[in-house]
């Protein structure tokens, strides 16, 4: 046992730590099929319903000259990101509640490595979701105005958005420590999606307060960034705002999550 002990005093490298935690995170995601299937199906069901039920909206004067389905394709990407947030958060909260977090705290694992590794599973889910939504959209007749290159940029933007939201979920888990608290915030995240330009272009929102909220809501710009690649082509302003807000979300949420991790991972 002595030789094992001697080796163990040399802490593993950062990458090795991240890889070990990420491997666990991915394994957990793959083995809990409900966590993959429901976030995939629910947005697609809504996409199918709303894509058809709101097709009359295309007859509103000033509506972009595309099908409503093309207009609405951006929404599943956002809904998927919200599910990623909740899953990332509840997974980490479960570790805190069960004491597994303490087990990890007793190893040389760095807080940043734990955070990065935990988000590994979220990235896998985000990749799978984004590809599926895009394929379903294309299969149902939605043309991607920005072409194949635009589709790849769309996937990148969607994954970045999911990553940012996963940071939010992780922050909530570290701050509150229970799955119940994380899930309690889900409706709030859901509300931010509704109070945006998810259903109609901002210039067609008649009710002034709703228009104002949608204008100040960063989620509107995330949706519009994704949507621009589908219905417009290469819209520099929409992409700049979309990527800008996505990066800001990722930086802020992960920054706060790192601080919350320091507070949670109290070790002398």
């Amino acid at each position, binding site marked *: 046992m002595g030789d094992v002990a001697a080796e163990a005093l040399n802490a593993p490298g950062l990458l090795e730590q991240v890889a070990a935690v990420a491997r666990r995170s991915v394994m957990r995601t793959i083995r809990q099929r409900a966590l993959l299937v429901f976030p995939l199906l629910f947005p697609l069901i809504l996409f199918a319903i709303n894509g058809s039920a709101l097709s009359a909206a295309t007859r509103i004067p000033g509506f972009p000259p595309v099908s409503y389905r093309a207009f609405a394709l951006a929404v599943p990407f956002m809904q998927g990101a919200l599910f990623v947030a909740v899953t990332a958060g509840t997974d980490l909260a479960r570790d805190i509640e069960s004491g597994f977090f303490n087990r990890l705290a007793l190893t*040389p694992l760095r807080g940043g490595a734990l955070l990065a590794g935990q988000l590994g599973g979220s990235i896998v889910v985000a990749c799978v979701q984004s590809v599926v939504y895009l394929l379903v959209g294309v299969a149902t007749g939605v043309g991607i105005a920005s072409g194949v290159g635009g589709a790849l940029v769309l996937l990148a933007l969607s994954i970045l958005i999911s990553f940012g939201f996963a940071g939010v979920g992780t922050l909530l888990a570290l701050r509150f*420590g229970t799955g119940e608290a994380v899930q309690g915030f889900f409706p709030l995240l859901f509300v931010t999606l509704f109070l945006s330009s998810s259903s109609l272009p901002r210039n067609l929102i008649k009710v002034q307060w709703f228009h104002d909220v949608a204008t100040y809501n960063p989620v509107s710009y995330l949706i519009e960034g994704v949507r621009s690649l589908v219905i417009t082509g290469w819209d520099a302003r929409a992409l700049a705002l979309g990527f800008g807000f996505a990066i800001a979300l990722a930086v802020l949420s992960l920054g706060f999550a790192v601080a919350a991790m320091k507070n*949670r991972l109290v070790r002398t």
Partner: protein
Amino acid sequence: MNMAGSGPSIEVDGLVREFRKGPRAVDGIDLAVSPGEIYGFLGPNGAGKSTTVLMLTTLLPPTSGRASVGGFDIVRQGSQVRASIGAALQEAALDSILTGREHLLLQATLQGVAKATRVRRTQELLERVGLTEAADRRVGGYSGGMKRRLDLALALVHGPRILFLDEPTTGLDLQSRTALWSEVSRLAHDEGMTVFLTTQYLEEADALADRVGIIDRGKIVAEDTPARLKAEIGNPTVEVVPADPSAADAFAEQLARFGVPIRNGRDSIGVQLPQGEAQLAEVIRALDQAGLRVASLHLHQPSLDDVFLAKTGRKLEGAAAENEPEAQPAARARGRRGR
């Protein structure tokens, strides 16, 4: 600071832990554990056992006082302490989605066990704790005993010299408990591992520990080998349950003729017999002459519970009920850390 490898494995000097609300969970404890010793930390729920373990394993900073584990200061040399210890804390803390083998490999990786050694070490530990057949099943399907064995294996993966076990057999059946005792005893006596074991079970402390520290309300009230602690009490105790609970005062008055009567929370009153079992007849006569009817009467030899009773005026069971609002320090500590 002790040089690692010489002096006590664990040394504690005036350790205190306060939480924002409520009394001190740990109120100035001193103890020393020699290398290769099994030290039993016995006390009711809420006494401060788990809080002490959290501090010694560096998961909770002390409010004041000092301690060293494996020769390293718990506050200033936390990472060295963690590298020297293994811990199986109050919750089994396992991931129900992973298999036993995956747990050990993950733990070995995070502890820095070399890649070449990990697989061999994992297999070795699985064999040692008797989980080879279940190794590739998800932990969610393990029994309580299997989970605790895996917990122990995880604590040993990096070959520590000091092992912390926080109530390791709570909730286990007798067979699982005995198996775990056997393994802990072997680790200490055959491999020279120092074991710091917290428990609320008298028989566990009695059976396993080389020395026992009894903690109540954050303070150590007694510390010695189980045999010497019991010998200190010496005399047998008679415990009487009045047929009419409202006559408890009258019973206490009669029993006061033999020693200091101690009320045991609910309906019984006990007293030590300074002249031993021979005084039992006198006690019965005294109660009878006073016209007091007895529901039941027990005579028992000193146990660690009697030691606790003598030191605190309460039985271990009654103490647990009283301390209940102060219980779950680990949960509170986790919650507070989020603020």
